[in-house]
């Protein structure tokens, strides 16, 4: 490395080093956010060009709050977040415990397999499940018919079934990820605790509930927070599985999908911006509540 760079004094060095990052951060992080706030107060017909903006005060916000679809999308989002989030963690905890206690040699391989859904492209996965969930020719219906004699369900076009289908896909995607997270956390619990408990005659179940779970509480908190935020911003799976439209009767239209449609299908950028800020308030609120929930429980302990 024979770079002849100008001599940088230690005084200015920090600013030089953070400036590329800072520049990008301001241009692509801060500024657009401020502009989005500005846009939330404007009415804008995009095909008229940038000059076509006009100030409308809180009209976009009141529109969003009165819009039945806004609330429907929010309900869908909450439903999906809970239906996909809760099972993820309920399944991940015992799975992690099983791997932790039973797998020594194959552990790395198992972890790699469990992590695989998480690192795969959502589009590829959604396309995959689109075929698997096909009403007449899908694997899932074929298996259900074979095993339980169930009739074929129209997973993707039936109002009652499209959300469970999506929840299932999201569950599949993240349960392995959470398992690995919990596994990592379990590895930090000192073995002596377990030894002492076994000597006291505590069963494996009691050990799990009284040593393992409390021991990984911070990680559970982390994982659940990720699920809450991730669930509330669910976009790709519902988008791909419903062809970008949100499904029959908008049953699979999450808030993020509705936001996208409002901006890019119905060309209402002002309204969509207002909606995104309202949703942000919801997400912030729920994240704070999650935080609260975990802190209280910690206190009780």
């Amino acid at each position, binding site marked *: *490395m024979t770079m002849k760079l100008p001599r*940088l004094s*230690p005084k200015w*060095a*920090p600013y030089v*080093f*953070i400036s*590329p*990052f*800072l520049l*990008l*951060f301001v241009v*692509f992080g801060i500024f657009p956010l401020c*502009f*989005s706030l500005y846009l939330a107060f404007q009415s804008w017909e995009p095909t008229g060009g940038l000059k076509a903006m006009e100030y409308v005060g809180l009209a976009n916000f009141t529109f969003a709050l009165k819009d039945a679809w806004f609330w429907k999308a929010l309900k869908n989002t909450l439903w999906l977040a809970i239906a996909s989030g809760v099972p993820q963690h309920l399944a991940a905890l015992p*799975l992690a415990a*099983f*791997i*932790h*206690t*039973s797998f020594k040699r194959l552990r*790395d391989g198992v*972890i*790699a397999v469990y992590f*695989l*859904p998480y*690192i*795969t*492209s959502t*589009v*590829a996965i959604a*396309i*995959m499940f*689109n*075929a698997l969930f096909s009403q007449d020719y*899908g694997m899932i219906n074929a298996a259900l018919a074979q095993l339980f004699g169930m009739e074929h369900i129209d997973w993707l076009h039936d109002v009652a079934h499209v959300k469970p289908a999506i929840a299932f896909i999201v569950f*599949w995607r993240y*349960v392995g990820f959470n398992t*690995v*997270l919990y596994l*990592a*956390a379990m*590895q*930090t*619990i*000192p073995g002596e605790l*377990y*030894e002492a408990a*076994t000597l006291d005659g505590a069963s*494996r179940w009691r050990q799990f509930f009284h040593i393992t779970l409390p021991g990984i509480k911070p990680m559970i908190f982390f994982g659940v927070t990720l699920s809450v935020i991730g669930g509330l*911003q669910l976009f*790709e799976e519902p988008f*791909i599985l419903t062809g970008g439209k949100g499904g029959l009767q908008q049953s699979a239209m999450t808030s993020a999908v509705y*936001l*996208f449609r409002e*901006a890019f299908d119905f060309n209402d*950028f002002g309204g*969509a911006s207002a909606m995104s800020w309202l949703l*942000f308030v919801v997400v912030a609120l729920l*994240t704070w509540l999650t935080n609260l929930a975990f802190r209280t429980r910690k206190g009780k302990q």
Partner: protein
Amino acid sequence: MTAAVTTVPAIGSGGAAARASRWTAYLIVAVGALFMLAPFWFMFVFATHSHNEIFNLPPPLWFGDDLLTNFKLLTERLPFWRNLGWSVYVALMATVLTLLFCSMAGYAFALMEFRFKKPLFGLVMATMLLPQFMNMIPMFMIMDALGWIDQQRALYVPGAASAFGIFLMRQFATSAVPKELVEAARMDGCGEFAIYWRIVLPLLKPALGTLALITFIQSWNNFINPLIVMRSLSNYTLPLALRSLQSTMNTEWGALMCGSAIATIPLIVLFAITSRQLIAGLTAGAVK
């Protein structure tokens, strides 16, 4: 830093009951693994069947012989090589830029002093909690203002200011780079850039590796950003190209599966080689 593997009372000890519970554990975990792998299996199997074979009762469970036909259809309907090329290009550029900018800034945050350091870092961390959808419209507007719509740089430049990347770099730099070493080099007359390049970066290697992997994977799989800023089929990255193929009226599912499989394979290979590193890096960050 490295999580010590705790010794848990071996379940093997004990009688038949303990052995049964051990085998239950094996079984459950194995079923879980199959559950994770099954869709991939079908993806690869379907990639070798024609559209009519896929949409058939019962669906195929083993490989067929239509892989080449599917691939031919795929390249007929999409500028597939271009899309693949763009995915590679964008992912590489994103990785290089992110590593560079985040390591520089992370080093500065960790080992240098400057005004507003704390509040600035707080601000950056706060944006990590921002939901993705806040960015949808602003991203479009800023790219439009810059004239970057339908250009690849719109995909890899913004992400270089990754809050997670800074977090990781700063964490690692704080623990892996001794301040005294830097001071000593400075007193020896080493230039600031030289310190960064020759001393700090090599020490940051493990974190750089993890960040590189995460960035590459995220960039490769990214769908929303290309959806918002890209407009021409020949400029699309793979996820967007596949979705475009899926939304045609007369979808050829064999070709689509083939494309999906090809989009997935590079990451699987990459992951297979680096999984330990990646998971260790991620969970180490999380456990903190």
